[in-house]
C-alpha cells in the first residue's frame, strides 16, 4: 500500500512550490489514475515518489507498506518495490540493453538479500517478456534506448517493469507519443502485470489510455493537490467537460 500524506514539495533551489499538501492512498491491487492539466504537478509527484534528487521535501510523508520512502536513496526505493516508467526514457550509449537489464535485476536482488539470477534463467525471462511486448531480440543487443523509436522506448520501460516485478508501478504519461497499436501493446503489457499485491499509479492527460488500462480510482490533480477522487467514470466526465470545473474550484 502506498500512502502519501500532506506532501509539500518545492524545486530544490526553493524558487517554486509544486506540491501543496497532496494526500493519496493506493491500496494493494489497485490501479489509480491521476489526471490533470499541464503544470499541475503530476510528473513531479512521480519523480518525488521515485526519489529524484532535484526536489526539496518541505513537509509530509510517503510510505510504502509502512516504510518511509523519503528516507531512502532512489536505488533503495527501487529495491523496496518502486518502479517508474519514464515519460522520456534515457539513452545509455555502449551499454547493451541486455547488460543493463541484468545489472538492474541483480542489483535489486542483492539489495533485498536474495541470490543473483542464473544466466539461463535470466535469458529465459527476458526472452519471454520481450516476445510478449513484440520486442525483437536484436533490440536487446543494442545500446539501451539508443536509436529506439518513441514506441520502442515505452515498450522497453514496460519490459523492465515486468522483469523487476515492483510492488508499485508508476506510469508517467506512458501514452504520450504512442500510436494506437503501440498503445494497445503497452496496455496489454501493463494489464498482464496486474495482480492482488501490485498496484499502479497511471499518470495521463487523456482518457484514451484508460480505455485500455481500466483504473479502479481516478484522481484529479490541480495546483499540486488532489482535488477530486472518483471511479473510472470520472475520467469520462473529464473527457467530456475538461478540467475547468476543478481548476477554478481550487482557484476560488
Amino acid at each position: 500500500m502506498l500512502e502519501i500524506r500532506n506532501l509539500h514539495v518545492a524545486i530544490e533551489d526553493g524558487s517554486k512550490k509544486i506540491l501543496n499538501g497532496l494526500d493519496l492512498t493506493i491500496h494493494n491491487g489497485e490501479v489509480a489514475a491521476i489526471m490533470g492539466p499541464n503544470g499541475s504537478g503530476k510528473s513531479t509527484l512521480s519523480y518525488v515518489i521515485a526519489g529524484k534528487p532535484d526536489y526539496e521535501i518541505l513537509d509530509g510523508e510517503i510510505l510504502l507498506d509502512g516504510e518511509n520512502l523519503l528516507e531512502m536513496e532512489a536505488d533503495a526505493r527501487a529495491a523496496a518495490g518502486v518502479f517508474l516508467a519514464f515519460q522520456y526514457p534515457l539513452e545509455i550509449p555502449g551499454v547493451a540493453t541486455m547488460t543493463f537489464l541484468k545489472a538492474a535485476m541483480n542489483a535489486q536482488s542483492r539489495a533485498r538479500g536474495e541470490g543473483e539470477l542464473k544466466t539461463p534463467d535470466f535469458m529465459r525471462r527476458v526472452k519471454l517478456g520481450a516476445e510478449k511486448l513484440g520486442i525483437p531480440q536484436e533490440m536487446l543487443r543494442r545500446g539501451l534506448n539508443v536509436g529506439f523509436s518513441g514506441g520502442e522506448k515505452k515498450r522497453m520501460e514496460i519490459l523492465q517493469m515486468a522483469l523487476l516485478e515492483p510492488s508499485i508501478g508508476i506510469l508517467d504519461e506512458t501514452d504520450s507519443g504512442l500510436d494506437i497499436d503501440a498503445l494497445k501493446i503497452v496496455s496489454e503489457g501493463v494489464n498482464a502485470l496486474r495482480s492482488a499485491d501490485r498496484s499502479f499509479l497511471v499518470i495521463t492527460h487523456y482518457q484514451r489510455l484508460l480505455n485500455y488500462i481500466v483504473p479502479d480510482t481516478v484522481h484529479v490533480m490541480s495546483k499540486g493537490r488532489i482535488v477530486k477522487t472518483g471511479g473510472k467514470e470520472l475520467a469520462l466526465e473529464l473527457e467530456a467537460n475538461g478540467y475547468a470545473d476543478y481548476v477554478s474550484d481550487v482557484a476560488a
Partner: protein
Amino acid sequence: MVAVKETVEQVKELDVDQYKYGFSTDLEVDKAPKGLSEDIVRFISAKKGEPEWMLEWRLDAYRRWLTMTEPNWARVHYPKIDFNDSYYYAAPKKNAAPKTLDEVDPAILDAYKKLGIPLREQEILAGVQTSKVAVDAVFDSVSVVTTFKEELKKAGVIFCSISEAIKEHPELVRKYLGSVVPVTDNYYATLNCAVFTDGSFVYIPEGVRCPMELSTYFRINEKNTGQFERTLIIAEKGSYVSYLEGCTAPQRDENQLHAAVVELVTMDDAEIKYSTVQNWYPGDADGKGGIYNFVTKRGDCRGANSKISWTQVETGSAITWKYPSCILRGDNSRGEFYSIAVSNGMQQVDSGTKMIHLGKNTTSRIISKGISAGRSQNTYRGQVSAHRKASNARNFTNCDSLLIGEQCGAHTVPYLESKNASAVFEHEATTSKISEEQMFYCRQRGLSAEEATALIVNGFVKDVLQQLPMEFAVEAQKLISISLEGSVG
C-alpha cells in the same frame, strides 16, 4: 553484468586509499650514486656489462641532452625537475643475474604475485589464465626474469630483456635501436638514451606468428629513483605479435620520473599489436606524489601492407605525457591508436598520437576516449599528416570526452596537415557529461551511484576495450572503475 558486479565489489573492498598497488618491497639494493653525470652513464653501462659501442652511444646522447631544453607545449604543470636529485640505477642486490626463477629473490616473486602477475611457468600453466602469456618482469632498473623463453625460442622468437639483447644479439640492436625514435628526438627520449636501464626486446622472424601473448611488467619500487625503460620490437616480413605492458609503483610522497622509449618496426605484411595498461601511482587526492610519465612511443610501418596498432588504457601517473605514434612509410600500411585515458584527483593527462602518412594508400584510425573526474585535466593532442607522396591517405579520428563532476576539464587539440590533394581526413569530437538524468534513471532501476557510473563509463569506453586482448580487457575495466572511485558523491 559480471564485470560490473566484480568492479563494484572490488571498489567496495578498497580502503579509503584507492590505489591498491601502493605497497613497497623491502630489499637490499645496489644503487648508483645520486645525480646525473657522465660518470653515472658509465656506471650504468658498466653495471650492465655493456660493450663499448653501447657506452659511446649513451655518452653521445648524454652530451646532446645537456644542450637541450625541456618541452613546455603540453597542457601540464609541474615544478622544475632537478635531475640531480634522483637515482638513475637501482637493482635488487640478490638478483645479480638469475639463471632460473629459483635464484630470484622470493620477495620479488612475492611482489609480482601480489600484483597478480604469475612468474612461475607451472603456476601459469596450472592457473586460471585461459591462455599463456610470456612475461618479462622489470623491477626498478633490471629485468628479473623472462618466462617461456625456451618455448618461444622453438618458434624462433627472441623475447628477452634489452640488456641481454645488447650482449646476445648486438647486430639486431645496433641495426634498430634509435632507428624509429632518433637519439635527439626530444628531451626525455634523449635522456632515456643516456640512462636507460632495462626493458624488453622482441624479435619475430619472417613468417612467424608469435605463439603466445608477450608482456612486460614494469614495477618501480625504490624511492627517489627514475625508471628509464627501453623497449624494441621488430616484426620481420609476414610476422605477427601481440604485446602488452603493465606498470605500477608504490605510493610515495615525492614525484618519480618514468621516461620510456618504445620503438616498433614492422616489415612487409607484418603486424604488431601493442597494448598498455598504465597504472603508475597517481598521487594522492591533493596531488602529492605520483609518477611523471614522460614517454616516447613510436612505430615504423617500414614495409608495405604492414600494420601497427596501439591500444592504451591510462589510469595512473600524476602527469602523463605520451603520444604513441605511427610512421606509415610502407605503401598500404595501416596505423591504429585506441586510447582510454582516465584522470581523477589532481592528475594531468596530455596524450594522443601522431599518424604520419608517407606511403601511398596508407590508412589510420584514431579512437580516443578521455574521462575526467575530480579536479583533473585531460587533453587529447593528435597530429595527422599526409606527405606529398601519400596519395589516397585516409584517416578517421573520433575523439570523445566524458566529464564527471564540475571541477575537471577536457581539451581536444587536433593538428591536421595534408600536402596531398587526394588525402582524406575525418575528425569527429564530442564532449559530454554523465547527466543527472542518466544517473537517476539508472538508480531508479536499482543501481547504486558507483554501479551506475561504472556502467555508463564502461559503455563509453566499449569501442576501445574491445581492442584489448580478452584477459586484459576485464582487468582494464576493473581498473577504470577503481580509478574513478570517489568521483561520484
